[in-house]
Structures are given as structure tokens and as C-alpha cells.
């Protein structure tokens, strides 16, 4: 086996040095009753060529990305990834390193993550960002836990019903045994979180209000208003950002008054890869830095006064505080954070705005075309970024299945998440969708009228 370099001679010499007769003797501490007395029942070892054939067979059993038009979003987005991104993150000094525990030989990772923290602060308009969490949903759950921790006595959290359903589910999972009361705030006929209900539900027990920005329906929520309402009641506003490219165009949550921003960074150069690995980003205000979950990289100097970077404020973390830590997280999504850093560095100030604008314009074009169809309408009037809800005259599942037959993945059936919304689908249009593709989608949707 080419990954196992010891020769029989090596092994013999090593056993002699150890002073045992055979390798078996090294396992003498394991009682015979728990030893596995048979070989593992796994398929025979494959050669590299066989392995690649097998994985190509599995890949071919999935939808071919070149043959299907995709308008799928809902928390994972199809954006163009420049060739440079994969070339750079494939430098094995980056991807075969561990967590940067030894800063003198980890300055590459450390400086890149310091840059990542800076970029996330710039994008979100916040004071401080951590070195990453697992994904948007778990980052949102950590935001809720942090808000409750920082609020001390308050144990109630309001979740917008228009927050990504998987984020809400994850928050519920994380909070279920921690005596935190979660209350859902409905959304209105315009697709925006119901302000009136939100105001009624806010009380002296409320630690936080969590709102999607944009929300699950693609709607750009009036965050400043919600922040003001929440803060007037002494609660923190958590903005959950599932499509951070929107922040290239729309006002940042920080500028609008958010206290915590938790989101999904997959849009920044990370392939959709059937749901992971993705990138949970997390940003907060300076006053809350010591309540934050996850690793933080800080700038410092070495013995000669040269600039360098280290893991810092670790007294919040599990390896020091154990059960009193702000989170149990250890491994995060380091390489995905590096990916986002490379992607954002390439786009830069101009590119980020241009790509975001194209997403907006293409999505606006698609909305206009679809709204003109006799069998489709756009139920939500509020402004959106690159995805939007379409109401059809048939159950969304039926429409989606019909279009899949025409090799169009037209969107996500909202019925899956909202039983009351049987005829609605969530459609996403990015810079990757040409006008011709959009026209094909529109024509196919229209076909349903016949």
C-alpha cells in the first residue's frame, strides 16, 4: 500500500528495538473478549484507477451540471468560481496543516484568517468577526446562545418565520435542553416579518430577535426598524445572512443596527458540493467579544518587534474553560474561510458590487418575465435580492417535476417547509444564469398553463 512506507525489514528492526516478538504483542492491553476475531467485512482495496472509475460512476448518477439549468438557491448558491481560488487553496501548505497551534510555522493560515476576519467585519459592518463556525445554520444557533448568555437573565428568543427553515430547526435542536423559550414571529402578506406581532411578543424576558437578511424568501427585511424595536425592549437583534453576496449591494446589517450577524459564506468561492463543507461566519460588537464562540486571530509582535499573528482570547474556549466555555467548537471551517478570503480578494471592491448588481438585475428580469405569465404571480411585493417566490396555478411539486423532465431545476418547493404554501416555489437567479436560460425557464413555466 503506497501510503504505508514500512518495509518488512523496517518492521523487524523496530520490533527488536521495542523488544517484542510481533506487532500482535503491542495490542496485549486489549482484552481478548473485545478483540474483533474476524476480518472487517469491507470491499477489497481498489487501485487508484479503479477508485476514480467508481467515483465517476457515482458522480454520473447525479444530475449533470452541464445538462441541467439550475435556479436552485435556498441557502446554497451557484456563483462563478475563478480558477485562481482552487489553485491557491490547493497549496498543500494550507490544506494539510492543522489548527495553527504553533504560530511561528502557521503564519500563512494566521494572516489569511486575520484578513478573513477583517473582510467579514467590512462586509457586515460589525466590529469583530471570528475565524469561522460550521455553517450558516449552526452559526445562527451559536448567535442565539451568545445573545442569551450576554443578556444574563433573559431566556426568550423570537425567531422570524421567514428565517431559513433549516436555521430555525437547528436553533431548536441546540436550545432544546437549555431552558430557552423560542417563539416564532409570523411573516406578513408581503413576505416581511410581521412588525406588529414582533412588537407584541417582545418583552422584558426577550434576549434576542432573529431575522433573515435577506430572508428565506429572498426579501430584504427592514432591519433598521427591527433593530430599533428590539433594542428598545432591551433585546439584541441577530441578522442571519444566508446569501452574503447581497451585502455587496444592500446596506450592511451593522449599519442598520444589528448586534450579531451570523451567516453562510458558501457564496464566496465554495462549491455547492451537496451541502458542505460550507462556511459559518459570525460577527458581533466589541462589547460582546468575550462572549463570542469560536477562535479569534489577533495581531501581535515577535521578540524582534516584527508583526505576527496568533490565536487569542482563548480563555473563552473549550480547551481552557471546558464546561464553562462559550461554545464546544474546536475544528472550524478554516479552509473554507481561506477560500472566501481568496474569492473576496479577487472580486475586490468593484467586482463584489458588480457581481451583486448582476444578480439583482438578472433576478429582476426573471421576476418581470414570470409576473407577466398568466399562470404565475409574485405573491410578495417587498424588494428582493437574487431569489424570489413564485405562485403557480398547480402544486409546486408538480411544476418542479415537470420542469425537471425538461432538464430545468426551477426552484425549491416551499410546501416542504410551509404546509400552507402548496403552490409556491423559491426561484434563484444568479450571474451564472444567462438571459437565454431565464427565457427558457419562463417559457417552461408558461407551458404549464396549457
Amino acid at each position: 500500500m503506497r501510503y504505508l512506507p514500512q518495509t518488512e525489514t523496517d518492521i523487524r528492526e523496530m520490533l527488536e528495538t521495542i523488544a517484542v516478538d510481533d506487532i500482535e504483542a503491542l495490542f496485549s492491553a486489549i482484552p481478548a473478549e473485545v478483540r474483533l476475531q474476524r476480518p472487517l467485512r469491507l470491499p477489497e482495496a481498489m487501485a487508484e484507477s479503479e477508485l476514480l472509475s467508481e467515483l465517476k460512476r457515482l458522480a454520473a448518477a447525479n444530475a449533470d451540471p452541464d445538462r441541467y439549468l439550475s435556479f436552485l438557491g435556498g441557502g446554497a448558491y451557484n456563483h462563478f468560481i475563478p480558477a485562481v481560488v482552487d489553485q491557491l487553496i490547493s497549496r498543500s501548505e494550507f490544506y494539510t496543516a492543522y489548527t495553527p497551534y504553533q504560530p511561528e510555522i502557521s503564519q500563512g493560515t494566521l494572516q489569511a484568517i486575520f484578513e478573513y476576519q477583517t473582510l467579514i467585519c467590512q462586509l457586515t459592518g460589525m466590529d469583530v468577526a471570528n475565524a469561522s463556525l460550521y455553517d450558516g445554520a449552526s452559526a445562527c444557533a451559536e448567535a442565539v446562545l451568545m445573545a442569551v448568555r450576554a443578556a444574563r437573565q433573559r431566556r426568550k428568543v423570537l425567531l422570524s418565520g421567514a428565517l431559513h427553515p433549516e436555521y430555525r430547526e437547528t436553533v431548536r435542536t441546540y436550545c432544546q435542553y437549555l431552558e430557552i423559550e423560542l417563539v416564532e414571529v409570523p411573516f406578513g402578506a408581503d413576505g416581511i416579518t410581521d412588525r406588529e406581532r414582533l412588537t407584541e411578543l417582545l418583552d422584558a424576558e426577550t434576549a434576542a430577535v432573529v431575522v433573515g437578511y435577506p430572508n428565506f424568501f429572498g426579501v430584504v427585511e427592514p432591519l433598521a426598524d427591527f433593530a430599533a424595536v428590539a433594542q428598545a425592549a432591551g433585546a439584541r437583534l441577530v441578522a442571519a445572512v444566508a446569501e452574503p453576496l447581497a451585502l455587496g449591494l444592500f446596506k450592511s446589517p451593522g449599519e442598520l443596527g444589528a448586534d450579531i450577524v451570523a451567516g453562510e459564506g458558501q457564496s464566496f468561492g465554495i462549491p455547492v458540493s451537496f451541502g458542505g463543507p460550507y462556511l459559518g461566519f459570525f460577527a458581533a460588537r466589541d462589547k460582546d467579544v468575550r462572549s463570542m464562540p469560536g477562535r479569534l486571530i489577533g495581531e501581535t509582535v515577535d521578540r524582534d518587534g516584527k508583526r505576527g499573528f496568533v490565536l487569542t482570547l482563548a480563555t473563552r474556549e473549550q480547551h481552557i474553560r471546558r464546561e464553562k466555555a462559550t461554545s464546544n467548537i474546536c475544528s472550524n471551517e478554516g479552509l473554507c474561510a481561506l477560500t472566501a478570503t481568496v474569492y473576496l480578494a479577487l472580486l475586490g471592491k468593484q467586482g463584489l458590487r458588480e457581481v451583486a448588481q448582476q444578480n439583482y438585475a438578472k433576478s429582476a428580469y426573471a421576476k418581470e418575465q414570470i409576473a407577466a405569465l398568466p399562470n404565475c404571480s409574485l405573491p410578495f411585493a417587498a424588494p428582493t435580492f437574487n431569489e424570489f417566490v413564485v405562485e403557480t396555478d398547480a402544486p409546486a411539486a408538480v411544476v418542479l417535476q415537470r420542469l425537471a423532465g425538461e432538464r430545468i431545476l426551477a426552484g425549491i418547493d416551499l410546501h416542504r417547509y410551509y404546509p400552507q404554501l402548496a403552490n409556491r416555489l423559491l426561484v434563484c437567479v444568479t450571474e451564472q444564469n444567462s438571459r437565454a436560460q431565464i427565457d427558457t425557464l419562463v417559457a417552461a413555466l408558461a407551458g404549464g398553463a396549457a
Partner: protein
Amino acid sequence: MKGIGTSGLILNEKLLFEHSAAGRKGYSLAQLDVPESTPPQELVRDEIPGFPELSEVDVVRHFTRLSTWNYGVDSGFYPLGSCTMKYNPKVNETAARLPGLAQLHPATPQSLAQGALELMHGLQGALAEISGFAALTLQPAAGSHGELTGMLMIRAWHEAQGRPRTKVLIPDTAHGTNPASAAMCGYEVVPIAGTGGVLSAARVAALMDEDVAALMVTNPNTLGLFEAEIREICAVVHARGGLVYCDGANLNALMGIARPADMGIDVMHFNLHKTFATPHGGGGPGSGPVGVTAALEPFLPKPVVVRDADNYRLDDDRPQSIGRMRSCYGNFGIMLRAYAYIREMGGAGLKRASELAVLNANYIRARLEGTFDLPYQGRSLHEVVFSDKNLANDCHTLDLAKRLIDYGYHPPTIYFPLVVHGAIMIEPTETESKEVIDAFCDAMLAIAAEAQDNPALLHAAPVRTKVQRLDETGAARKPKLKWTG
């Protein structure tokens, strides 16, 4: 001095933000082919001050230079204890980039994602065979996420029995994530001390009562020792209605040798980024699947990948599930690398990997134990833990670690486990040759001699790196966590 460390040509590189020139960009975008459209002006943000403006060449040089300041498994020996820094096969990286896998959207209809679901189902089956568990979830994104998943399932099981219980027993050798994960399930943590580095069933029995929900063990533990009384320990816990959780960080010692479920363990997480050769990525992404006994299967997070006659699907209809741990189905890109590794090794290859990992650790122990203090004498499995007691002239573990860097090695895990004063925790893995290990041992012995003869070399180390020892106290006292211009 011998060793492979030299000071190569190291180029300086500023921060991204310090490179910017107005108007530069590293991105090309197709011409907009639909009418221009902009959102209402009051929603639009201003230009982001300080956001980078760089050419493609700037970006490529920037990150290439940064990469040269890093040390990875591909650079050299990386004996970081409990982290299992084995070689990461390159073919797995190629496989992960196949368009049919990398570009598969998670909301693709399941009938058009059968290859991905088959792969996940196959990985579940392989991990079940290796561990002996009845059922698995692949959803957790990392080891500690797996711990949280497993402990939530334990709590849900107790709730279903009508008695949630309040406490969890955790040995003093445990990773910090164990108590942190237990606390996130609302449990009080009760530490339990070992005897000679391992747990005794009698000690567990003395602490075990009807308020204890679970015992969390690591086996082999973080001293590299097998918990020989594990069967008796599990029996004691089960007799009082508790469950046993195993931190699977050290599974690399046991593949094909012994199975955690056969020891009586109820729940265990795997670290695909340790045992199954997926890259650590400078701190992730990992993947932390969790295996459970049949009794806990109803509580797995949803969805679960299942196989009907000739069709794979995601099962969401699981009323007793603890819920969802994250979006989608887990770190699929990591699962597929682990799956590729298992298929390439086969059952016999995995067993051989464990045997050679244990051989390598014992060989290091044999070469170093005459010079370095070995506080626990039990038979080592995949890793060995020394202390700095024998280092002369006020030289400590940290000094040894930094001096190893000058010799060209990544240091071992240091100051962990906490039960060993000045711990030096060495895990070589099976992918290192005798030559590499001999050279590392020579360096360790040379450094011990330097501590005797010229301790200044240790106190000054490292001297061949881009930066020398960094002021960590200053970094924490006055945190500077982003570039501010």
C-alpha cells in the same frame, strides 16, 4: 545540528488591504445581458471603505507567499498527538472536484442525486462495520459537533424513559470539547480521576448513581492507553441506567482490531479528518459522523440516508429525532474523501494502518523513554505521552517544541492531557517511514542534550522561522482582531 531545518528564502508580504490600489480588480464578469436594474436607493450601501483592490497577479503572489510560511503534513513530520496527522491522499482531492459531485446542489431532487446518496449510504455502512454500531448519522461537521449530537441523543433517550438525569461523568484525561459538549445539553459535569492513567470500574461504580446520564470516555484515551476495564465500566454504567459515550478521536489505533460497540459503548463520534485521512485544512473542515446502538437509532438527527429496494432517499419522517444539527446533510465533500480512502485501503489495509500506527508510536517510545520521563508506563497504542521532567536547566516543554521547529519538525501536542505536567504527546501515524521517525527521535535526543549543554538554544528557539516567539499575552491584553488601516 542535524535535522532538515534551514532558513530558506522567506519573502515578506503585507496584508491584502495594504496592497490595494484604487480601480484594480482580479475578476472578470460577462457583460450584463438583461436590462440594468437597481434596488431602491435607500436600501443600497455605500462603497466599503478599505475593501481590497488587487489584480489577479497580486492575489496569487499574496497567498502563495503566505502558504510558504505554513507547515503541513506535505511539508514534513507532524506528530501532533490526538490529531492523527496522517498523509492526505491526493486522488481524494481529485475525486472531490468531479463536477457531478462538487457542483451538485443540495436541493437537487433526490432522484437526480442518487450517486451522492449511494456514496453516503456506503460510507455509513463502512463506518458501521468498522465500529460495530447499528446506525449512523453523517450530519455533524466536526468532532465536537458530533459530541454535541451524541450527547443530545443520550439526553433525548433519557427524556423518553421519563427521567432526564442531570450529570455526566468525564475523566480528567478528556478533551476539553467533552465537558463543553455535555454542558450544551444542560448537564452538570463530574470529573473522574484515573488510576495509573486508566479508569477503573470500581471508581466509576462509586460515582455512578441514578442522576448520572452518561460517562464520556476516550478509548484509547489521550495517554495512548487502552481502557482495559471498558467492558466492566460499561456494565456498571448500564446497570444504573446510564449510557456510555466514546470520543472517537483515537480510533486510528483500533480499526479491524476491536470495535467500540462490542465493548459496550452506546454512542461514538468519528473524526473523518483524523482516522480517515481527510485534510485538516488549517483548522477544518472536518466531519464528525456519530454511530449509535439500535436503542438510540430513533433519536438520530434528521434527515437520515436510507435505502429502499433500489433507491436511496433522505428520511425526514423521524418523530423522535433530536432535530437538525445544521443545514443540508453534512460535509459531503469530506465524506467523499473518507469514502475514497476506505475503498482504497480495503478492510485489510485499514487494519494494517492501525497496526503500523501502533508500531510507530511504540518505536518512538522505545527510542526516547530512556531520556524523557514517561509518567504512565502502560502499553502504548497509537500515541505516547512524555513529560518535561528530565529536561535540564530550566528548559520546558514549550522550549523543546520550539527547538523542534528549528530541526524541521512540527512539534507534538503540548501541555495536554492536563494530568501530565508539561505533557509532550506524540502521535506519529502509520504513514511515516522508519527513516523519518529515526530522524525525529535523533532530533529529540539532540535537543535533550542541548538542554544540558547549551540551554540558550532552546530558550531562543525558533530562530529559523519567519517570526520568532510571539507576544501572546500582549495579543490578549489589547486585542487587535482586524486591520484598521
